[in-house]
């Protein structure tokens, strides 16, 4: 059951953490205890129509996608590309656009595509480029 009108804090305001926090700048994202209401915890990607699929076989960890992603949805740890945060990715396609490898390591597919099937039939290197 969702809360009634008298059961939540006023002001269309959400808390990122339950209780207080300190040294947040020195705590990596994975180690932060985000609240249920934090937009980090919640999925905000339900209107995505196309999605990026990541093929790590061609990735050179250049970090272009990580830098360009407008929604911080590229998961990179120790300068290694790990994958995509699909709870936050809106499917804008910028990561695939800026990916410099040949073939690309990130390609946009319809939302309902199967990742494994698409990776199995990944495009070959474009010899003309």
């Amino acid at each position, binding site marked *: 059951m*969702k809360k009634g009108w008298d059961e939540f804090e006023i002001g269309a305001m959400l808390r990122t953490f339950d209780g207080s926090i300190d040294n947040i700048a020195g705590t990596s994202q994975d180690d932060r205890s985000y609240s249920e209401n934090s937009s980090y915890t919640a999925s905000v990607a339900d209107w995505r129509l196309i999605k990026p699929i990541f093929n790590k076989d061609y990735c050179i960890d250049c970090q272009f996608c990580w830098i360009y992603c407008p929604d911080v949805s590229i998961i990179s740890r120790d300068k290694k590309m790990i994958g995509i945060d699909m709870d936050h990715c809106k499917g804008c396609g910028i990561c695939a656009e800026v990916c410099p490898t040949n073939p690309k390591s990130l390609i946009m597919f319809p939302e309902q595509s199967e990742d494994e099937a698409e990776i199995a039939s990944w495009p070959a290197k474009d010899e003309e480029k």
Partner: protein
Amino acid sequence: MAFDKIELRDLEVWDGNFAAAQALRQAQVDVVAAYPITPSTPIVEGYAKFKSDNYIEGEFVMVESEHAAMSACIGAAAAGGRVATATSSQGLALMVETLYQASGMRLPIVLNLVNRALAAPLNVNGDHSDMYLTRDSGWIQLDAFSPQEAYDMNLIAFKVSEDHDIRLPAIVNQDGFMTSHTAQGVYPLTDDAAFEFVGTYKPMNDMLDFEHPVTHGVQTEEDWHFEHKARQHNDLMVKVPSKIDEVFADFEKLSGRKYNPVECYDMADADVAVFCLGTSVETAREVATEMRAKGIKAGVVGLRVIRPFPFMEVADALKDIKAVAVLDRSSPNGAAGAMFNEVAGSLINTDSKVLLSGYVYGLGGRDLTKANLVDLYKELQANADAGKLTTQQQQFIGVRGPKLSYL
């Protein structure tokens, strides 16, 4: 950074704008973001001069529009500061979108609204069109009838608005030019007494509290929006009236000046009454006294608190009288007047048999003269004597051309 205080005389000669600027100075506002517009300009002009003369420790933000002014106020209030601004008319109209943001976000901001007509035709003089534009915006709305009250209502507005049980922004209305530019005697509090009354700002859910990060201004769709709006309405209906009464009582103890949500003048034994706002209240009081000398038991009801509308107090004030005229200083443009509707809403389902008639007057700064009010009281007495309306329900006062009456 230290700032200087001002030693005020017991009695100062201030217009409504300067009185409001002095109140903002004494409240030690942290951020004023403003885009000056006639007739409210001298409020922010006065405030800016206080700042440049080192009487204020705070930020004055110059912005590119009234929409930006209120947006900056919202940001500053969400960050955790005491915030105020001023505007009028077209500026208020441009600000309307952000008014709803401020109240929905439950941010205490004090807005001095110096009432002025809305174009077209363009007009800088006083009427209540801009006041009416804020009616459903979710702000607490107070009305000052004089420079003294403009000063007092500002201090009261901060104290009500910032209370953690309330956390709703407040508008202080005053009539453009008639109050804002007319110098009168004003009894101010000392700087220390005024600040002690308003109190040190106590932040709540502020963005500058880095140990408790918050997101302000979130999106909610059909699953949450209604609950937020319901809560805001509930708090305006249930919590704000008693808080206003409490702050009015505190202010009376401090200043000796007693305010009420509904200001009754000679209403105890009145047969007929005029219900109005702003400077018209003072004119009506003078005429009511003169009418009593002529044998008409006249009274005046002035509305101090416009939102939350004091339904019970209005009904109580009017329950025993025979006829009341509700004055609307804004063109209803195809309806009964807004105040007429509010007063009718207060009286319906009560035992009162008071005859209710509505009058549109004073648009674009047209004077409401004493002669107008003498005629009005005579008309009300005729209604009372006849036991029914002797005119149509809606009329115009002081407009040239063939007589206008409707309904």
